[in-house]
């Protein structure tokens, strides 16, 4: 009796493992649904969560514009799988080939899908390409750490040409390629003048707390003023819903100004970092997705500079080393 029951057990185990593996493959489906946001223009709207093994890093908005000459892609997503599934989603909308990919900036959720676009010219600002080169390897490792097997096979592929800022037309669409900075050292905003659509990358967030790992708050604020003057009809933020008007720019500016004032006041009153991280959020931000965790992250990114300014009333050295 003993032997057959053990054999049965092993068989059952094998079946379970096979079933699990099969389910695993199906589970790595981002279920990308292109949403038409303007003529010829589709967006893939990610969640406003942090990167997890549940969402596989699909926390970002990407987009594509179908022109007469081919498809223009704006950001390639967080992983090789995402890039591949984005290409499949594009193919469901149009038979046109992809002729150009733009990376708005060098953050991992925006360019780690580049591998899926081999053979297509991928363009980014020089500072973005430099960032992809220097940080890309660590970003890919970290994506794997946070998203797990969603990111398997993902490697940083650096954009292969510089964006030349200014007018760029493709298949009847007039694009304005605008070189900016503030969220990172190189932020590309793309305005499609033909539809009035602004692809803002992470210069604009809406209903999701902005992130600051490479941010300069003063430059970012100046950039937001420049974006507001463009008078775009609608804006696709890097994170959050597509919208008409200035809601995203206003919210991002409000967050950054509050962050700047809060950190300056905290440093001026002698608080230490871990204490600042516990400070209450204003009511208008309390329920915003990721407000608490992004505030904590921003304290790590930015507070040392505020603290430094506050402490610069330097101590007097009595004695230097003997």
């Amino acid at each position, binding site marked *: 009796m003993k032997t057959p029951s053990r054999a049965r057990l092993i068989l059952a185990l094998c079946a379970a493992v096979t079933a699990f593996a099969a389910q695993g493959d199906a589970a790595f489906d981002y279920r990308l649904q292109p949403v038409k946001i303007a003529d010829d223009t589709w967006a893939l709207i990610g969640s406003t969560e942090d990167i997890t093994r549940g969402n596989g890093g699909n926390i970002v908005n990407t987009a594509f514009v179908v022109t007469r000459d081919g498809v223009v892609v704006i950001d390639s997503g967080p992983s090789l799988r995402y890039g591949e599934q984005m290409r499949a989603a594009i193919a469901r909308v149009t038979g046109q080939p992809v002729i150009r990919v733009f990376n708005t900036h060098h953050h991992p959720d925006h360019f780690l899908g580049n591998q899926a676009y081999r053979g297509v010219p991928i363009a980014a600002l020089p500072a973005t390409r430099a960032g992809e080169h220097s940080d890309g390897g660590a970003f890919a490792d970290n994506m794997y750490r946070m998203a797990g097997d969603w990111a398997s096979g993902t490697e940083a592929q650096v954009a292969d040409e510089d964006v030349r800022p200014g007018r760029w037309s493709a298949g009847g669409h007039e694009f304005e390629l605008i070189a900016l900075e503030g969220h990172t050292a190189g932020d590309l905003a793309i305005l499609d003048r033909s539809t009035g659509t602004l692809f803002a990358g992470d210069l604009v967030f809406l209903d999701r707390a902005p992130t600051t790992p490479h941010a300069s708050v003063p430059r970012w604020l100046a950039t937001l003023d420049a974006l507001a003057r463009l008078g775009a009809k609608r804006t696709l933020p890097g994170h959050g819903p597509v919208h008409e008007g200035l809601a995203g720019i206003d919210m991002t500016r409000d967050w950054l100004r509050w962050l700047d004032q809060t950190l300056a006041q905290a440093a001026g009153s002698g608080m*230490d970092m871990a204490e600042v991280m516990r400070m209450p959020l204003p009511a208008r931000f309390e329920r915003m997705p990721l407000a608490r965790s992004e505030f904590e992250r921003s304290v790590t990114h930015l507070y040392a500079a505020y603290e430094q300014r506050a402490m610069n009333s330097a*101590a007097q050295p009595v004695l*230097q080393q003997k």
Partner: protein
Amino acid sequence: MKRWFAALGLAWLCAAAVSAADADPLNSVRWPDLQREYLGNAPVSFDPRIEVLAPKVAEDSMNVPVTVRIKGLPDVKRVLVVADFNPIVKVLDFQPLIAQPGLSFRIKLQQASPVRALVQTGDGRWLAGGAWVDAAGGGCTAPSTGRGAPDWAQKLNQVQGRVWKDGQNQRLRLRIMHPMDTGLAPGIPAFFIEQLAVVDDKGAPMLKLETFEPLSENPVFSFDLPDLGQDALRVVGRDNNGNRIDARVLP
């Protein structure tokens, strides 16, 4: 023979169960070793009056901010800070003397780890508090960043500081220029501040601490002291190569 070993194992397990006063609320496999190594297996109560404030996720493994907050616990003699899973566990050993028992500082984390404050009161009892910090890691085996700058040796042990007074107490914040090398980055020996004290006008210490490799490069501290009306506070100390720290912080 087998049975004899089993009996011995059982006895050891019982002994372990008796010596651990409280189960570790942070549920770390390292805790029994730390308790043996640093506290000589003395019983420890985990006490909500001792809080370790730190981010849940370390955004920068080289600079993880930590505040130890101790409220309503009198007669604290010693605050020993350890990080269970760091290759160098001990972070600092603080004697508050006349200062408040809480303090803030920054550490390097090699991987996700509990960060604990082990607190000894005047009656010899040990109490503890702590928090888990998740981290991508690598903080202890990376070279310090300042070594790349040509003038780091000129700035060594320079102190920046500022005092905030509220009438009764004063907060002292310090930043000391030092690479705080752990010795774990290839070819770079351990080089770190070992001792620090804040002393009054007559040279009597108001607080003292021993510091270790896991403190961040160019370490930043916050201390809370009673305001005894001094013109300035003096900060003294030395690193493990005998370089002196000596600075006055004006209010």
